[in-house]
């Protein structure tokens, strides 16, 4: 098992119930519970923000509107407003989920809570995110351009086919390793420092953690959006 398993120490999976009528188990990992909490927080705030929308936004509606408007504007700068509308929901979900996952590792003392494991410091989870991006490139690309999507593997020259395939395959690998490496490394440093000197010293590292968490969520989303932009580009 990975080093972080030993560091956080909890039993993983936390629950391992048998699926009724079969002999298979459904392991509920610690991170799954954290992930559900994040999903709940996002969904509940979203419902609260949009349940009773005002023309002049206040409070939580304002926060959500600001986030959506800003992020969609950002995608618009990369792929144009029309495509930002199409692919924005996917990209925004990536960003918000990764951001909250990253920040969940920064809550002091949260590691003591049962079932609380920051999801993004695990390669399986970042790989899950990256595979979603990888598949979405194909899904959006084929949906936008049909079979013509595969033409770009032979561009600009046919003999670059193998390079293009490698490039495409490296994308999810680099996405997941980047996210995992940065968050895991930063959290490990904070953890070790907190073990050695509990007070004050970890504080600047926490600030760094906030920075890293935001930057990595941003970089992941930025790369995903440039990949999707490239896959859905119209050639005439």
């Amino acid at each position, binding site marked *: 098992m990975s080093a972080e398993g030993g560091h956080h120490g909890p039993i993983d999976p936390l629950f391992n119930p048998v699926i009724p009528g079969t002999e298979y188990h459904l392991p509920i990992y610690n991170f799954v519970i954290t992930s559900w909490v994040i999903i709940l927080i996002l969904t509940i705030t979203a419902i609260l923000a949009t349940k009773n929308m005002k023309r002049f936004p206040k409070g939580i509606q304002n926060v959500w509107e600001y986030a959506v408007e800003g992020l969609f*504007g*950002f995608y*618009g*700068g*990369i792929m*144009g407003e029309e495509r930002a509308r199409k692919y924005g929901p996917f990209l925004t979900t990536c960003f918000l989920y990764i951001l909250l996952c990253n920040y969940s590792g920064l809550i002091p003392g949260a590691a003591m809570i049962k079932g609380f494991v920051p999801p993004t410091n695990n390669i399986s989870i970042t790989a899950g995110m990256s595979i979603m991006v990888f598949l979405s490139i194909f899904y959006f690309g084929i949906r936008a351009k049909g079979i013509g999507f595969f033409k770009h593997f032979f561009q600009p020259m046919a003999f*670059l086919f*193998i*390079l*293009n395939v*490698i*490039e495409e*395959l*490296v*994308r999810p*690998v*680099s996405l997941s*390793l*980047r996210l995992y*490496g940065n968050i895991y490394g930063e959290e490990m440093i904070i953890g070790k420092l907190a073990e050695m000197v509990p007070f004050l010293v970890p504080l600047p590292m926490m600030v760094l953690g906030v920075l890293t968490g935001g*930057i990595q969520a*941003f*970089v992941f989303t*930025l*790369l995903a959006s*440039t990949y999707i*932009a*490239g896959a859905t*580009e*119209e*050639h*005439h």
Partner: protein
Amino acid sequence: MTDDNGYQGYKGLGLIMSAGFTMAASVLFGYFAGSWLDKYFGTKPWLTLIMFILGTAAGLKSLYNLAFPKKEGD
């Protein structure tokens, strides 16, 4: 169209920060994929070498693509 908003700076910053890792991941991917293929076909060390070079080339190409994205309507 892509220059008319204030996000360009953030975009550039993000791409710069991602560039190093993209390059490293390409090279490593080439190396590991090559050694796996070598083991599968028993052609050690040729495929490792070829894939290593291809991975490096792919990394360079993806950096180029990040720096000069294809423009709409090309």
